[in-house]
């Protein structure tokens, strides 16, 4: 468990709160600046983490960024604490061969579209998503061709 930085704003220490509530399930937590906290969470704990940060700590879900790296896939879930001037980014690593994770759209409706987007553009499967169909790509776009993957063609 890595913990660096200890910024406070308005008397509420967001990083500390996350540690208290989520404790040993966090792989690491790092305050890179006054405004930015990056945490690493195992993929099976993501729904629990989203539930905690939104329902208990009162964060607003901004969006999620799916990234294809040479080692596999990452999803970064961005949450905003508007009154406290902080963005918490939860990073999780997915399997390179079979990228798959549980949906959080049943916890926060705003995640519905972005999960569909990551599904079609990166080929990440979201288990139990209520409406996993194409959002941006045309119906004629070839099956299995994911535009945001960095694959040598």
């Amino acid at each position, binding site marked *: 468990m890595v913990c660096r930085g200890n910024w406070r704003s308005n008397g509420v220490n967001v990083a500390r709160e996350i540690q208290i509530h989520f404790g040993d399930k966090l792989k690491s937590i790092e305050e890179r*600046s006054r*405004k*930015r906290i*990056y945490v690493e969470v195992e993929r099976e704990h993501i729904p629990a983490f989203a539930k905690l940060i939104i329902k208990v700590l009162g964060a*607003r*879900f*901004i*969006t999620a*960024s799916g*990234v294809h*790296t040479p080692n596999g896939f990452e999803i*970064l879930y*961005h949450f*905003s604490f*508007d*009154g406290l*001037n902080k*963005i918490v*980014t939860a990073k999780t690593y997915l399997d390179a061969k079979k990228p798959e994770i549980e949906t959080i759209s049943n916890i*926060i*409706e*705003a995640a*519905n*579209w*972005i999960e569909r987007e990551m599904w079609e553009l990166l080929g990440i499967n979201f288990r139990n998503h209520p409406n996993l169909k*194409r*959002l*941006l*790509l*045309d119906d004629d776009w070839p099956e299995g061709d994911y*535009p*945001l993957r960095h694959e040598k063609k």
Partner: protein
Amino acid sequence: MARTVIPIGPYHPLQEEPEFFKLIVEGEKVLDIEINLGYNHRGIEQLCEQKHYDQLAYVVERICGICSTSHPFAHVNCVEDLLGIQIPERALYIRTIIGELERLHSHLLWLGLAGHFIGYNTVWMWAWKHREIVLDIFEKISGNRQNYAMMKIGGVRRDIDDADIPWVKAKLNELVPALKLFKGAVEDDPVIHARTKGVGILPKDKAREYCVVGPTARASGINIDIRRDEPYAAYDKVDWKVVVFESCDVYAKAMVRIMEMFESFNIVMQCLDKLPKGEIDAKVAEIPPGEGIGRHEAPRGEVFHYVRSDGTNRPARYKVRAPSYVNIASNKIVAVGQTISDAALTLAAVDPCYCCTERMAAVNTKGKLVYTADDLIKMSQEKTRKLREKYRR
């Protein structure tokens, strides 16, 4: 009663935020709505990975045609978050001026179109006439009425000439009587009240669930504004306040935008008065590896950019989330239960791009054309006409 499907959209080459609403209606009542996106998906995120950082500001400037400085603003905030550098004071003030002038012209554009949809074509013409004042100021400062290309990592590209400031101020002062006129019209006109109050309600809890941002959130009583909550540029150096309305309807959305224009005017005036002397560019040489997040409160709400750098001159990943991405989804709540004559105004109240709304057409389940786009706007205008007659009596 037979159900009719009304497709609104989907495609217009000028659309800045393309969308396709499929309204399921029974008689005049909207029962359900299906929202489809992607008709103008240009793959900008992927394109960004192929451009070097000097080109990126230009690429993201072209994401949106109306608020063309929102994305570059979030982009510079984002890369500067990664760099962790200090920006010259003068550049911060110039950025603020550009950002607020843009809010003025964008809100005036919305006001004009909202007027057109409810049959107040005079409001439409007047709002757009006064919007020209703002565009003239942009032309004076940047040389362009749109796509100003002012933002640059580390500062701004162009300085504001001190000799131009009195002219800019005089021009802006011309706008104040017009803003007061619009405020008075919306506050006092019983017909506008009848068309907007209690129409298109987005309750506070639903607004939180859909994580809406900008005027859409502030009209539902959610007090968020990135300019105050994550102070950047010169927003923490001037006096202004966040406008919040609690009534959650179209009226609140209109009033939030109108009152915000007064705040924008105040911010620009203060920035012009306080504009410090000095450099406008921190001269950034290279971008180190790392991650950055940048936000900007665009006229429609929070723009979010994420960048990952691997130390080369191109980003390894660039993520963009525009405010309409979350705001449009909330139409699922506001449109259902409304009548079709309110649909044009309700769907437009989150301020998506209008080109799509102009391309409305209603087809029944057998494919026969029932209403065209013009018909829907006419229906909305007809409703206002009847109300006006009623109030005249």
